[in-house]
């Protein structure tokens, strides 16, 4: 979208990130380094409790909301360390959006949900209307809700709510969208719709998808990263990781899931 030479480098570059909890010997994340290129969808897989959520939460400084966690290392967004002293997390989160495991629509109308982020910065009403319509179209929800934008968002089905959450994140025009198990609370049909939404979104955004479902990674991801006990074991193109993993741990995890 920007049309500059930025497409060359990574959008997000994680350099030796560690997260430690107070009074816990082992770090929750141990020296993680990984780059995220533009227009890519990276799936983060790993056993439960390996630190996937913690990792994506370090990417938009959400991790700081948990008392007692300390972050080390650098997360460079277009070359700028988002943990630098003069960077405000509130602004970081406008560039790096997030979608949660359960749909988290606000108890307001569908339209106001989608417009939430824009209202904060005083955009004009026409701009908000346009951005909301666009975001709802991109999240594949527009056709279903265009006639009922004023209804409460909680009247939508779970899958629709989740796509509304995606639209809400898109509306503020971020570059990166973090998705933490966005389909684990949805039924198969809704899951399928969210997956196809993700596939169209990766044309324009950097998507980082946490999933416990290797099948989902296989369907939508360009690249898979395997996390285990807070360490990044292996990362590579989806086919390579799923079919020809280099590390024994990765293979165990993947075969364990497939059989």
């Amino acid at each position, binding site marked *: 979208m920007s049309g500059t030479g930025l497409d060359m480098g990574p959008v997000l570059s994680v350099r030796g990130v560690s997260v430690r909890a107070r009074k816990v010997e082992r770090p929750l994340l141990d020296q993680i380094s990984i780059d995220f290129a533009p227009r890519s969808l990276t799936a983060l897989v790993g056993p439960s409790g390996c630190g996937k959520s913690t990792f994506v939460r370090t990417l*938009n400084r*959400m991790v700081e*909301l948990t*008392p007692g966690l300390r972050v080390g290392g650098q997360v460079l967004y277009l070359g700028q360390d988002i943990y630098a002293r003069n960077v405000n997390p*509130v*602004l970081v*989160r*406008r560039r790096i*959006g*997030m979608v*949660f*495991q*359960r749909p*988290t629509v*606000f*108890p*307001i109308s569908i339209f106001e949900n989608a417009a*939430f*982020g824009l*209202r*904060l910065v005083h955009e004009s009403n026409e701009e908000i209307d346009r951005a909301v319509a666009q975001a709802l179209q991109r999240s594949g929800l527009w056709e279903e809700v265009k006639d009922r934008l004023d209804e409460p968002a909680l009247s939508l089905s779970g899958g629709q709510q989740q796509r509304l*959450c995606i639209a*809400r*994140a898109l509306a*503020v025009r971020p570059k990166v969208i973090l998705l933490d198990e966005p389909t684990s609370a949805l039924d198969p049909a809704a899951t399928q719709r969210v997956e196809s939404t993700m596939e169209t979104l990766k044309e324009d955004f950097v998507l980082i998808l946490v999933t416990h479902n290797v099948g989902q990674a296989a369907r939508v991801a360009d690249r898979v990263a395997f996390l285990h006990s807070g360490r990044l074991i292996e990362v590579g193109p989806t086919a390579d990781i799923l079919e020809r993993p280099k590390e024994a741990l990765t293979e165990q995890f993947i075969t364990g899931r497939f059989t």
Partner: protein
Amino acid sequence: MSSPVPDPVRDRQPIPAAAGPSSPVPSAPARAPFARVLSGIVPYLPAAVPAVMLIIIVVALVHASGFTNFGLQFFSLHFDPPVDQWGIAVFLIGSFLVAVPALFFSMLFGVGLAVASTAYLPKLVTQVLDPFVDLLAGIPSVVYGIWAFIIVAPYFGSTVEPTIHAYLGFLPGFSGPTQSGGTGIMLAVFILTLMALPITTLLIRDSLRAVPKDLWESGLALGATRWEVVRRVAIPYARRGIFSAAFLGFGRAFGETVAVAMVLGSATVLPSSVYAIGNTMAAEMFELLDSAYGNSQFLAALSEMAVVLLIISLVVNVVGRRFISRLYKEQVAGL
């Protein structure tokens, strides 16, 4: 209404009638012979205690009032026992004049305190500070009263009221002469604010705590500040609890008796300004019961005032409790 707060009654599963094939427990009510029906009722009887008590209260008040004075006269401004004038409007209005501003301030501070402890302060600090607010509920009203009358009132009379008069005197209601003693509407509002504050704060705090963590975080993840999440997400989500807080806080302020009787000045006149003295229904009822001894019409008039007060507090409580999802709230007096 779903609430993350565990509700023991709703969460409890019904006990299976026949508890498995191995236990030969007869299902008692079905097979009980007629003679045992009576003994079957006995265990249920004590359960009626609160309902019976409520009925006794209503019957006693209605009986004593006999609806002797009810009618348009009863709601007039003219209250003068020696000439058989029993209008309660002065006290009814007086009650609202102190309870409404007290509610306003206790909601304002209540929201502020609840937001501070749920959105801004670390848990450790909250654990130290919140009990102070709860402690306000534990102080007996007569103790508030003596403190307000002896310690606070002179300060109000000498400093607070003249200052407010100097700065806000141009506003209607703030212009009247200040009382040197300091008792009056303003002092009563001050005391009632303190007395309603623990209730409003507790209820608002609880309902803000019930906002799912995911919801806070999704607000922040969209680049909102904490305050924006509070205002646009948490408060709308918690609106029912806040609504309850307003009603129950009002009930507390409206029905308060002794502290008001000590600081409001006990005057049977409509207050002309915020510095003026006046009286409320509860305080008037409390102070005059003595004088009604042997005068059945006086007692009837006071009992009717009690009926009015009871009806208002019942309505306020019924409405206020509609949205409290927990079984009971007990940490604070008057909840």
